[in-house]
């Protein structure tokens, strides 16, 4: 650059010309390159960490929700032949032949039960039907199995619906789990339809999850707002002590806190015996393994997440605004509603959305404190992932939660725009 400056003593706007023909932009890029590499190197560890343990697993989970490998992998010829069958008329002889061969093969490799389990998600009874037919064919070894062979092995094959189920499950991708998460399925006519009332559970649980999260968020905001106000407006001595109390729960394990609530809320626990001792109630309240306990424990858990953003916003609101409003003739209550409250909205939004998102995904608290009627989506995700091993459905339910969260966050971002909260 120094060379360049010697060439341009003039005051014109024209960029200085140097002997070499390298454009200035290229030179700038070169000069900045080291800085860019250094910045990238600093980010790299965290980036790789997040990619490895967060982004990729979530992507895999999402994929699981539509992945459908069982029939394609373990009954490969059948899967191809099922594509040629129209799904309405009687199964073709080619289909029955390859299906029998695939079943025998699968029986020998012990994969028939996996296929049976997958088909059983759709129509109950498929598991036993598949394993029974496979066992029989393994014994008889039919060369060109026909419909008759199948009906002989099990009468149920005479019904077209079992063949239709097989065809529905033969793609390598399926909407089955996602539809299931919304209490819907593809019926035998190939249409998307709601499952019978008796089998519909997930939409109910989804709305229950939203309701519980909504109630605890609203309650946390109501309780947290005055505390945040006090924190932001008292002497630093008091506010330091208060802040310590607010942050205290963060230094205790979540499991310990939840277990403590179990002790406190049980029928003969501290809360009930105190209330009875004070003569407020005559017989113990049912709080544990019921909705009230879930609400109480949740609110306790979420309060700091509501208080901190509110505090951060309130701290930045000058007391001069309230004074100005009062000097202009507004009663303190009017000044609060018209001047103070609107300015805390970013904090209410941030705290509320944070609490809500945390609440809809929480697992331990409702699992330990709630009864069967208080379990939220997370419980069913865990159940399908750990107990029933229906990973497809667990992933689909997880995806529902994830998408809900993202939609909420997008709405929040739209509403607050650039005036979002500054943390800390």
């Amino acid at each position, binding site marked *: 650059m120094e060379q360049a400056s010697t060439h341009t003593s003039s005051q014109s706007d024209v960029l200085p010309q140097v002997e070499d023909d390298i454009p200035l932009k290229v030179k700038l890029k070169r000069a900045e390159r080291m800085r860019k590499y250094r910045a990238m190197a600093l980010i790299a560890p965290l980036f790789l960490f997040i990619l490895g343990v967060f982004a990729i697993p979530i992507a895999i989970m999402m994929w699981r929700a539509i992945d459908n490998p069982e029939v394609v992998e373990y009954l490969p010829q059948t899967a191809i032949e099922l594509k040629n069958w129209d799904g309405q008329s009687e199964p073709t002889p080619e289909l029955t032949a390859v299906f029998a061969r695939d079943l025998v093969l699968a029986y020998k490799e012990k994969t028939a039960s996996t296929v049976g389990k997958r088909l059983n998600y759709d129509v109950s009874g498929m598991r036993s039907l598949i394993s029974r037919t496979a066992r029989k064919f393994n014994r008889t070894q039919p060369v060109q199995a026909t419909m008759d062979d199948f009906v002989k092995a099990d009468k149920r094959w005479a019904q077209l619906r079992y063949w239709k189920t097989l065809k529905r499950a033969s793609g390598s991708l399926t909407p089955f789990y996602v539809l299931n998460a919304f209490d819907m399925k593809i019926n035998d006519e190939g249409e998307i339809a709601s499952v019978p009332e008796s089998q519909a559970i997930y939409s109910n649980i989804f709305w229950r999850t939203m309701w519980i999260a909504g109630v605890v968020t609203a309650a946390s905001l109501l309780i947290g707002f005055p505390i945040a106000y006090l924190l932001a407006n008292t002497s630093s001595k008091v506010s330091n002590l208060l802040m310590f109390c607010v942050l205290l729960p963060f230094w205790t394990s979540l499991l310990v806190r939840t277990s403590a609530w179990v002790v406190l809320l049980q029928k003969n626990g501290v809360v009930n015996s105190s209330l009875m001792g004070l003569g407020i109630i005559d017989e113990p309240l049912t709080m544990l393994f019921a909705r009230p306990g879930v609400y109480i424990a949740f609110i306790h858990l979420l309060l700091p997440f509501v208080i901190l953003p509110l505090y951060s916003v309130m701290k930045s609101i000058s007391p*001069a*605004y309230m004074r100005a409003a009062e*000097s*202009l003739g507004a009663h*303190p209550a*009017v000044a609060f509603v018209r001047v103070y409250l609107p*300015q805390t909205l970013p904090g209410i939004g941030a705290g509320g959305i944070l609490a809500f998102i945390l609440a809809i995904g929480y697992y331990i608290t409702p699992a330990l404190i709630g009864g069967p009627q208080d379990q939220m989506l997370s419980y069913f995700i865990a159940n399908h992932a750990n107990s029933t091993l229906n990973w497809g459905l667990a992933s689909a339910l997880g995806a529902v939660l994830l998408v809900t969260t993202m939609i909420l966050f997008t709405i929040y971002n739209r509403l607050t725009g650039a005036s979002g909260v500054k943390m800390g």
Partner: protein
Amino acid sequence: MVEVGLDPLVRFKDVQKTYDGEHLVVKKLNLDIQRGEFLTLLGPSGSGKSTCLMMLAGFETPTHGDILLQGQAINNVPPHKRDIGVVFQNYALFPHMSVVENVAFPLTVRKMNKTDAKKQAIRALDMVQLGEFAERRPGQLSGGQQQRVALARALVFEPQLVLMDEPLGALDKKLREQMQIEIKHIHENLGVTMVFVTHDQDEALTMSDRVAVFNDGIIQQIEPPAELYERPANSFVANFIGETNTLCGELGQVNGTECAVTLASGQEIRVQNIINGKTGDRTSVSIRPERVQLSDQKPEDQNVFEATVIETIYHGNHVRVSLDVAGQSDFRAMVRSGNIHADLNPGHKLFVGFSQDDCRALDPITT
């Protein structure tokens, strides 16, 4: 401008204020504010002037004494019932409302219907030449514009009294001067009583009908600006308002309002006996730098000294000269650029002269 004879609009009666129960921030304040006047409370920070304003606005309660508004004690009247407009230091415009909503706020909280309130707010904005910015947010305006909005908001509900707490402090010099004139004109046009707090003495002198100089919780002097500058009552006021030279000495022969003062160097000067002291009292004599004559020839003033030029600084329309006079090296003189009758190069010896009328013997400065 000041209507004499009527009851004062505001009267502070023996008002005291302490925050910690140990130190008085305001010590026994007695002050009358007349209808229609522009009164400035001037003083260094911590002198109690802002506390007085906040007590008047209702945000602080006097520890002792009464504040009367139109003859009624208002100690227990909450701020929103006092009908006093306040302009705050950082304007305190509500950031979530538009400019016109801000200005209409005092009207809408008084239950005026929205259309009328908006009309009146626009009129108030027009008064400060901001009608076209009505729909903007305060954050989109410059400091000076925000200042005007705050002013319009404090005036729109036609309060009998408007208080301003260092409202121009955040503006740059040029804008500040412009706003000073503008506020003064608004005051003249509306006839509203204004109480203005500032620590800037130029501002106080430019705008006010009267200036109350605060120090240490006490009003040191309360006078119209010219009086205050020309006839400071004590050394604090003389030093705080404008610039002054201080010569320390002892009172000599006293002759009514005039007297002689013997300086530390042994020289004697003739001065006005403002402190009303008697022979032998210690005193500080104050002389404004622009009242000092510099000359190569011995002038005919009552008080003449030989002096040595230490430094000369050119200021365009005037020249400031530091001199060694009577053993004091911080003596300053101010000479208009077209009126120089001496060689002002450093080291040059010349005569300084000043008249007896310009020398005021005040309370001694203890150093």
